[in-house]
């Protein structure tokens, strides 16, 4: 039995059949990719016909594409969407123990002498026809709130960043599972073989001592072939390192080089049947095609002035959040299936008012501009946009509480996210938390419910989208029951 390097959890036998199965696996795209490879390699079109009916999507999808705006660190629901006007009167009072119940607090606040209630410093107002409450920190988002479905009752079991974030991204706190984007790449495939199927952007963020690191496994492919992993574009310099030809190497020489290298890799593949070899070959070819596709994608020369009015002048600056949002729109226009923008720095254990103001200032206009822009360009109807974070923050202050300053600890029991676009009922507010934004009163939405809803909008029945690995028919939503959140659907 041949050893499978790098995929120790895979139960797939590394032979050609499994390679074909896993590589192709329902993905229209993988086939397209292969076909494209054959084209480039042999110089003539492939005549391989895909099956008339794929097994995915199960039903006609509402969304063809998805943009994930991911606020890493745990964005406070109390400063964004979960308005609790009653808290002002309870400033600095102790949070009643009956609210906390039996919950174990994190080590960061469990030792505190008291848990003083910290009302949000920021004013809320109702916006749009829907009258959704939005904080003053998000004026631009408030402007497009009639496009959004705000879910205020998300919850998770994890109380620390890595497990919570891993759960949010992969459906499981334990590492090694594919991310949502990888699942979608695997199941639905690429729409443009010249660009990656799942692109990750990691814009800059306001300086923040508590910024959590991002691990590449958060957009990894887990037990799926690694070609389904997100491709992270760099925010400085060349978007993809070494994509350009080295000095003195022209395109035809590059092609010759890739053909010879491809022949050697093919020998290795024939000998060892390792799907990772196939991935490597596919990625070389992808890089070759990206040489022309990426500069066209990242060049903003053809954007009208109105774009920068909409997204802000920041959007001209490579690596800014606004630029990432603009890039997300441009990728949507060019058939990238999944774009995920990670914005770090939302972990406000202390000095929250100042920090979250900076975080919101950095992201608000870009998010709203993206929604507006997609709507204007006719793309919002088949693009799903998701703004989310891994957990919420506590109503009580971590550390000292003053009229002008406070901090908030991690809070898994409720947090706010929003969805917009394809198949979403616009102007919706879903779920209700208690007076302290501590517990859920009505309509809880677990992370797996959220993921099931996303898959549903992409035409996939989450219960039937499985891959056998580690002896289990694995699925994004895990083994526990997950429900599509019908209340946010159009």
């Amino acid at each position, binding site marked *: *039995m041949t050893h499978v390097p790098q995929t120790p959890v895979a139960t797939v*036998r590394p*032979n*050609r*059949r499994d390679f*074909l*199965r896993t590589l*192709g*696996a*329902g993905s*229209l795209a*993988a086939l*397209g990719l*292969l*076909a*494209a490879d054959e084209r480039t390699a042999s110089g003539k079109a*492939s*005549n*391989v*016909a*895909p*099956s*008339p*009916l*794929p*097994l*995915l*999507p*199960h*039903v*006609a*999808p509402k969304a063809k594409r998805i943009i994930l705006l991911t606020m890493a660190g745990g964005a406070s629901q109390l400063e964004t969407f979960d308005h609790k006007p009653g808290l002002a009167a309870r400033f600095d009072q102790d949070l009643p123990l009956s609210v906390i119940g039996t919950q174990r607090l994190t080590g960061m606040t469990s030792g505190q002498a008291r848990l003083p209630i910290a009302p949000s410093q920021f004013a809320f107002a109702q916006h749009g026809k829907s009258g959704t409450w939005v904080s003053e920190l998000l004026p*631009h988002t408030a*402007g497009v709130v009639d496009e959004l479905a705000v879910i205020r009752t998300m919850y998770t079991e994890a109380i620390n960043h890595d497990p919570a974030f891993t759960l949010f991204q992969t459906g499981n706190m334990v590492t090694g599972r594919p991310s949502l984007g990888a699942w979608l790449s695997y199941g639905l495939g690429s*729409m*443009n*073989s010249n660009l990656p199927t799942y692109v990750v952007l990691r814009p800059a963020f306001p300086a923040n001592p508590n910024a959590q690191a991002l691990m590449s496994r958060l957009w990894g492919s887990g037990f799926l072939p690694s070609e389904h992993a997100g491709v992270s574009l760099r925010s400085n310099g060349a978007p993809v390192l070494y994509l350009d030809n080295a000095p003195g190497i022209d395109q035809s020489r590059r092609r010759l080089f890739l053909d010879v290298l491809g022949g050697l890799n093919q020998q290795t593949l024939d000998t060892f049947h390792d799907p990772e070899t196939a991935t490597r070959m596919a990625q070389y070819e992808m890089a070759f095609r990206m040489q022309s596709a990426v500069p066209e994608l990242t060049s903003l020369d*053809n954007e*009208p002035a*109105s774009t920068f*009015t*909409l997204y802000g002048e920041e959007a001209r600056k490579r690596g800014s959040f606004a630029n990432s949002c603009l890039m997300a729109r441009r990728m949507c*226009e*060019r*058939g990238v299936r999944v774009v995920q923008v990670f914005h770090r720095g939302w972990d406000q254990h202390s000095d929250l008012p100042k920090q979250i103001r900076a975080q919101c200032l950095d992201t608000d206009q870009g998010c709203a*501009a993206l929604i*507006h822009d997609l*709507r*204007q*360009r*006719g*793309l919002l*109807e088949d693009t799903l946009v998701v703004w989310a974070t891994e957990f919420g923050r506590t109503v009580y202050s971590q550390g000292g509480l003053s009229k002008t300053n406070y901090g908030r600890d991690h809070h898994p029991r409720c947090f706010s996210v929003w969805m917009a676009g394809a198949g979403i009922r616009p102007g919706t507010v879903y779920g209700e938390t208690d007076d302290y934004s501590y517990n859920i009163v009505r309509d809880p939405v677990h992370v797996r419910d959220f993921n099931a809803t996303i898959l549903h909008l992409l*035409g996939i029945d989450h*219960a*039937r*989208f*499985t*891959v056998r690995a580690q002896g289990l*028919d694995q699925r994004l939503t895990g083994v526990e029951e997950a429900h599509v959140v019908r209340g946010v659907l159009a």
Partner: protein
Amino acid sequence: MTTNFKNMCCSRWIVVAMGIVLLSVAAWSLPPDGSAGPTWLRAIGRFHPLIVHMPIAFALLVPVLDILGRWRRRPEWSASADLVLGIALMSAVMAVLMGLALGHSDEHQGDTVQLHLWMGYAATVALGVAWALRPQWPALAVPSVVVACALVGFTGHIGGELTHGSTYLTENLPEPIARLMGAKTPQRTSTSVESTVHATSTSITSASIPAPSVSPVAEVPASATVWDAVIAPLLNRSCVSCHSATVHKGGLRLDAHTYLVTGSDAVVVAGNPESSELLRRVLLPIDDDEFMPQNHKKSWDETEVSIVRWWISAGADAQLSIDRAAMDAPENVKTFLRTQVSQSSSVIKNLAPVSAPTPILTPKLAPAPTTMIEPVDPIDISWQARWSALHAVATEAHVELLPVSTHPEDGLTIRAFSGGKNVTDASFARLMELAPWVVDIDVAGTAVGDSTMAMLATWPSLRRLDVSRTAITHTSAASFARMRSLHCLLMNGTVFDDVGMEELGHCSQLRTLALCQTKVSTAALQALRVALPQCGIGSDEIPNDKK
């Protein structure tokens, strides 16, 4: 001296004659009839393969001693040849008796077994004759023993075939040499699928289902039967070496469909896998005495067992064709069958990551355009062929052709992101025959223009069209107005201008219209919004709060 010599000659002939009688009686009373004889007999018989090496070795040594002794002038060598021949003869008799015991008691039967038996008998008799005539006619000593050795060798070879299968000796030899040695070509079923299995079993250590690409294998038409394409090759691989026309251990043959299902003790009970002896045997613990195949290296893996189980439960019909089977088989069987149907990458699509069975599709069509997609079954052969043709057309035009979903009535999508500027009016013109089915076209960023729009105007089912960043102009407005199903039209980044706006005003079917980065004026936009109140019209205008 002379008397003693004559006595010895006579006594040798007497011994040989008695031996022949003994062997004949034994052969007559212990026929290999396929039944299981007494255990004690089997216990003795099982030593046959061990003892059988003695007569072979000793007999071959006799001519060596004879010839070497004469050549090197070492009479003691020649003298010992006689003793060795005697030992060879005795061990041959023992081997034959044990062989008879084994053949009678251990479920052996068949032509090859019979041949082995009589050759062994003949070889032993030949050894006896060679031993008996040696003192009297020294000149015949060497020729007679050479004849005997040839018979011994041939018997041993047949025995090897019984144990290892008829192709064991020659299957790995280069083809010409093998043919020179008279190797039989391996048994073939009516199709050539069997080679798939052969290739697989030698290339992958754990016996597994045939890998589509391991060896260049002829395509199997989907009209082939499951028996020919799947079941027979599995049996050939794992069972037929012991259960065939030439060897039928336990009285069982598995080299043709009829032997599986006929007779009161048939190993396959059609429709009832649980009562089928075939399945019971392969599912036993591997160390069970009754586990089959006895050569564990040939055993079936989980998928293969499930295929056979499904085939039995589906009626174990020899005529069941793959295309028919594929309609109601469980997903894993379908997947397997699909790998059989077409060898190359087209398989990929069917191997979707969905483990739950897909509901059988009974397409119901949207009543609307009469030219719309016909009811098709995904596995239907004519549709498969037609799909291949359509797909080939799409590939030539540098576009991708994809079903919207698993439901045929959802129609097809054309995507041209990957093709880019290779997609032109000329290439797109080839896609005309797709017209009835296509509901969604993405040609953003391609080189198509107004003439493609004119062509698309006749496409009855088109609901969404993205022509952003193409060369279309206001000329296309009239074409858009004729696309009566069109709900969504994206024209961002084109030179579309006010000239076409009035015509667009007739597109009351539109619900979404995107005109960002076009040459359209604000006034014309305002007028269009009045003309099309149901349509959301996007432009570069900035919402008031962002100005």
